């Protein structure tokens, strides 16, 4: 859990430093940091539900399986 947060925080800091060095607009910095925060939340959520009965991966599988049944014949 801490490892995941550390990786994203490190990347976020490096990107922030890069954007400042390149003199990018405040909007760009806000979007990049916002995405980083969103990905930390998503990654931690995926991490905490990794041993649950229904993981995020299996929910997505349940979403796509009916479409595949429509595409395939005789399954």
């Amino acid at each position: 859990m801490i490892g995941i947060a550390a990786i994203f925080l490190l990347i976020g800091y490096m990107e922030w430093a890069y954007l400042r060095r390149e003199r990018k607009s405040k909007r760009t910095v806000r979007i990049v940091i916002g995405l980083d925060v969103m990905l930390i939340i998503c990654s931690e959520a995926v991490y905490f539900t990794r041993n649950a009965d229904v993981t995020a991966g299996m929910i997505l599988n349940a979403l796509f399986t009916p479409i595949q049944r429509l595409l395939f014949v005789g399954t």
Partner: protein
Amino acid sequence: MGRITQLQVYMLFSQFLYSTAIGFFVSHLVRQARFMVWVSVLLGAAIGLLITYFAYRLSIRRPDQTLGQYGSQIVGRWVHYPLMAAVIAVNLYAAAFITRQVIDFIVINFLPDTPHWAVALLFGFCVARGVRSGPVTVFRSAQGLFLLSVAATLTFPLFISNQIDTDMAIAFITWFEPAGIWNGTVIVAAIFSEMAFIIYFFPYITKRKSMMKSLSWATVTAALVVLMNAIPTIMLFGPELTANLTYPTLEVIRFIRAGTFLENLDPLLIIFWLFTTFLKIAIFTLTASIALTHTMKMDNSKSFSSMLTAAVFVFSIYLFPTAAHVERIAVESEATFLLLPNIVPVMYLTVDWLRSLAKPSAHKAQ
């Protein structure tokens, strides 16, 4: 802006198409199409190329922009933004899934007892550097090992030519099962239609008018490599065993006994194939990164690349609890989530055509 040559397009997409097709799809394909796998590959490749042609037709209308930039002019912002969000999410999910398949493959066969995160960290660092370098570097790197990669994948079936059951060959003509052929075709079409990703790289490419020629040759090369691997595998193991092996191509390589010096060729040949999976994951992540950058009206995808790659590798470890879950998803839904993002440009093209039919003068003014 265009710095990617047509040769690089051909070399990247050839490797991009056959990488997972021969690594992970042979058993699924044979389970569906059995001996008619060659028909499925040919039909699926043709459908994949057709979907790519539609993406090309859409791109050529606005060659200096990507779908993320002009999509809102076609379908409106309220449809474009959710659609692009879905495409980006599905691309990241697909990248994570393919990454997990590669990590499982490496851990099970070559690095037993190694934790998944260690393999993911090393492989992820390479992919992150590639993605951050941008499309020009990734396409150029595809040139580096192209010949060795194609030579390796085309060579290993030749080593087992004296062990295959030639009596089985007649079944490749006599066996006929339309449902299985169609299902196999959908799987192959899902893989080959990934060339529609050109819609996100179009401004970076030179001599765009001859793009379909390069992509057609890439399709032919990839289809040839897939057939050169799938057919000898069936003739060696039979369709039943091939359909039930997790990595049939690897088993074929392990069947090779080329003298005492080359007693076990698999690591040597796997290295080149592993490079093609690197390209595959990098292109999926890069596509998501470029689509996000241009949808957010930004100009440089560098800032998103590292964090999206990190997310792909974290998802690859924790989204799928076990190898059994990965196998289940591969059978139940992989073809669909690979196919859906490639259908999106077809939808945009249809709307664009309808709009230009309704307002021909307005479209000309654009």
